[in-house]
């Protein structure tokens, strides 16, 4: 599964880790994260994320 990087702050979403603090369980691919999820570091919306190359 692909990792995604936040354009605003550089936080990397790793599907293996998920974001359990904010209700995203480990193993969740980026496209399965709810639309209202926001970057846990800077609060940017999902649309600010790009696939890590």
């Amino acid at each position: 599964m692909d990792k995604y990087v936040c354009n605003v702050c550089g936080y990397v979403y790793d599907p293996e880790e998920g974001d359990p603090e904010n209700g995203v369980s480990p193993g969740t691919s980026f496209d399965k994260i709810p639309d209202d999820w926001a970057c846990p570091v800077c609060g940017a919306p999902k649309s600010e994320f790009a696939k890590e190359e």
Partner: protein
Amino acid sequence: MKPVAIKPGVHWVGAVDWDRRNFHGYSRSPMGTTYNAFLIEDEKNTLIDTVEDRFAHKLLCNVAHIMEPAKVDYIVVNHVEPDHSGALPELVKACNPEKVFCSPMGEKAIKEYYGAQDWPIHVVKSGESLSIGKRTLHFLETRMLHWPDSMMTYVAPDKILVSSDGFGQNIASSERFTDEIDQRDLEVQLARYYANIVLPFSSVTLKILDQVAKSGWDIDMIAPDHGLIWRGEGVGYAVEAYRRYALQKPANRAVIFYDTMWRSTEKMAHAIASGLADAGTPVKVMSLKSDHHSDVMAEVFASGAVIAGSATHNNGVLPLVSAMLTYMKGLKPQNKIGAAFGSYGWSGEALKDMTEFMVGMHFEMIEGVRAKNRPGHDQLKACVDLGRRVAQALQAKVAAV
């Protein structure tokens, strides 16, 4: 204040804001603050950072003590927040620099703030370096410490890390180095700055500390953009303090904040405090009518347990309590034990509201106490007992770390 050479050829040229008491519009700064900027004399004369716009003349005057402003070749912008870049348009005009360096996020922000279409902006990324003659500048992006554009600049071979908002303290003084002032004041202001500004970015802070350690930079001076400069043993102290702050290990200390209409909730606060103190946990009681939210936040940061009190007001919490909780939530404190209490007249929603709020912040909650109208002997005993229970839970938690 006149320029001060912090190393041969490297000059502090900033401005001291002696009477600043309201920092960034929301946080108290009882000791004032400083906007630090540094001018390096080399083949390419380089200015690192500027000051708030209303101090532009001071900065220019300080630069002029060292060289004609027109002789400044490069300007490095570590951070575009107005307290560090406000004077930039005036400086660019006076210096007419050959190049202005900033981070990728910095370029966007400079353009958004200042237009700056015709400025000679050059973007530098983490890991890049720039020779200015005898010296080399190394750049480290520190995104979200505490803005997306933040960056630090390491000056070799002078061994100076210009750290922007990291390691800063809001202190106005005639001294320029941390070892020259009262150490307790320094500690309080360093922690206070962290608690009110850097705290939400603690995980980022830990990563940046690791990057700095891995960079192999030999640092014997950390020059933040606010307050005094760390040198000698101060460097290790500052780095260690930041690591400790970012880890947020629980401390055996508690804070109770509250608001009250007819002082019943206040009585409860005092009873809870006496339970905590009896059980061996030092506690501070803060009335939100007397203590500013940023002062309370400094105590929250230093405390392993946070206890919120409010009378029930129109089926909810009092506005000062609501403001405090919202402010605290934004700063994302971790590893706290929480509890709530309050007096009520008929419906009593405040306790539930405060509890839910703290559950949302992942606080480990101890069941709180509610008292109808005027707390009687039994209810005050229940408050003392709440204090004891919090103290026991906290001490067990501290011992387990």
